[in-house]
């Protein structure tokens, strides 16, 4: 039908505009900070991220940082020009009270140190494990961690997180299994699509209808992009357990089971 030709052309043109892919890699060297967090909640430690990047190569280097989410559109991506050996403090530029991730890329080696600090210096700082892109789970991989606890002394939470360069593949689809610690009984199981931003599960007992205080392990099978787009880097899940009395926190160990190894 002749009348449909312009429509098809317009549709194809629009479709071309809408087929965004993840940004091209900025270099072979990467560092992923799974959590950057700042808050100012009354009665809680005023947390702030403290992140430094050091050029460990013998030549000047350019490092690209992608914040996800940023506090404003213009701070989503930042370029750092670093002299050999130079260390630079990274401005956090993340929204208040929501978890962000930082993803660094460069053509030459660099080092990233990250911690979450109490700006009053009362609660101990929390050193954040810095990962490489290769550490992240790819579609078909599983991530396991635990135990997530809620006792009079301690309380845990966990969070799904991703580098911002995945923005055009997000949201991700996962299959989540919660089991009693040490591979025990299945407590909850389901397949769902995550939000496109780091998703903190602050009260898993309520969210997954578990008996209050039940300890459990988390097993996440990464199924891929809900939009059927190629996943460039991957995703991560971290867990944190906090001592109620001292506000001291520690990361739980996250293990990756590669799809090919199963």
């Amino acid at each position, binding site marked *: 039908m*002749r*009348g*449909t030709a*312009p*429509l098809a052309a*317009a*549709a194809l043109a*629009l*479709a071309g*505009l*809408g*087929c*965004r892919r993840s940004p091209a890699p900025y270099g072979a060297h990467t560092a992923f900070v799974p959590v950057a967090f700042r808050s100012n909640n009354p009665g809680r430690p005023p947390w702030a991220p403290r992140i430094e990047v050091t050029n460990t190569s013998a030549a000047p280097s350019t490092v690209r940082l992608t914040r*996800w*989410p*940023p506090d404003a*559109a213009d701070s*989503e991506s930042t370029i750092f020009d670093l002299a050999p050996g130079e260390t630079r403090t990274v401005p956090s530029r993340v*929204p208040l009270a929501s978890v962000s991730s930082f993803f660094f890329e460069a053509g030459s080696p660099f080092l990233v140190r990250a911690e979450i600090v109490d700006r009053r210096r009362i609660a101990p700082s929390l050193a954040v494990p810095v990962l490489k892109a290769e550490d992240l789970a790819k579609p078909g991989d599983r991530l396991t961690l635990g135990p997530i606890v809620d006792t009079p002394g301690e309380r845990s939470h966990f969070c799904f997180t991703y580098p911002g360069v995945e*923005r*055009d593949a*997000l*949201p991700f689809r996962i299959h989540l299994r919660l089991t009693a610690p040490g591979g025990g009984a299945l407590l909850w199981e389901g397949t*769902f*699509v995550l*939000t*496109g*931003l780091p998703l903190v599960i602050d009260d898993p007992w309520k969210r997954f209808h578990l008996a209050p205080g039940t300890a459990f392990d988390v097993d996440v099978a990464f199924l891929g992009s*809900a*939009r*059927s*787009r190629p996943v460039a880097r991957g995703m991560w899940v971290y867990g944190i357990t906090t001592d109620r009395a001292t506000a001291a926190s520690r990361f739980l160990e996250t293990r990756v089971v590669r799809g090919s190894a199963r």
Partner: protein
Amino acid sequence: MTSRQRVIGTGLLWLVCVWAVALVSPRVVPWMTGTNPWTWDVVRRVTPLTRWDSGWYVNLAEAGYWEPPTRVGQETNHAFFPLYPGLMRILVRTTGIETSLAGNLVSAAAFLAALLLFAEWTKRHFGEDRVLPAVLVLLAFPTSFFFASVYTEALALALALAAVLSFERGRPLAGAAAGVLAGLTRITGVVLAPYLALVTWRASREAGLSTGRAAARAALAGASPLAGFGLFCLYFWKRFGDPLLFVKAQHNWSGQSKSILDGPALIWQAVVEDVTRGRLLGGSPARTFEGLYLLLFLVLAAVLLVEKRRPEALYVVLTVAIVFSSGTFESAGRYVLPAFPAFAALARLAGRRAFFGTLVALSSVAGALYVWAFVHWYWAG
């Protein structure tokens, strides 16, 4: 140029205009904007014609239905029908395009199909002279930009017209298929049921069918959108164990406990409140205009009744009745869009050329303002 080409050309031109206004709007008074409730990842990727409830369709296309709501006031995506987001999902999975753009493309394709069917329906019932004015009225209606947005209105209109025309032409299977799909698209599919039954009865009797066969066809026609809605309920029953989850989700949407019967009283309370507090154009202009659209469509239903187009009048009245049962005027200007016979009735004003031209021009300007408001996160319906 044939009549069909003229209609499709006009529709394409309208789409270009709506998109041009939508793309320019963010640069027009950019500091004036409503509260954007969406998260960063969604805001940065969706098209400007994706706002408010569009987010639920994007979410449904990407994530499917969630766990059922557990309390009043909890908003969940079970309040939305599956066909439109299902088509978006197919387009996204096959092409990889942005989900909101897929919605816009589904809407645009459905709307162009609807426009051709509307022209044909108008020609059939009102004659060739009414076609272009009716198309212009539909395009220039202030809230018509929803046909290009990530909303179900275009698909609902296309399927309603496809069902009506198919039954009128004596193609019951095609009509039933369109009716079922309309029932899977939005709640207006349900009010399509009596309309389809009546037009099929009328067409069957005019074609000389016996009373029994005409009644059987009318029953098939009327049952088709209800069957679509029934499939939707069946799906919820199988998956969540609650066939009336859609009703529950709609009920839970509001922060207050209410039933369909409370709807008119709640609307009356809101009207009295707006009038007594002087908020007609200050506090809630969109709601005031939406009340006016409802009144207009009730008047147009009366016009159709006077012209002895009883099935069409009933369809328009029932479409308006959905709004009254909801307990709020919000979205009324959008809900009335699938009530296509009203647009054909309104097009009779084309006999007074200067008045009609002025009306279309003013309405188009209002439409552009609606697009600006929508893009800037102001409530537009």
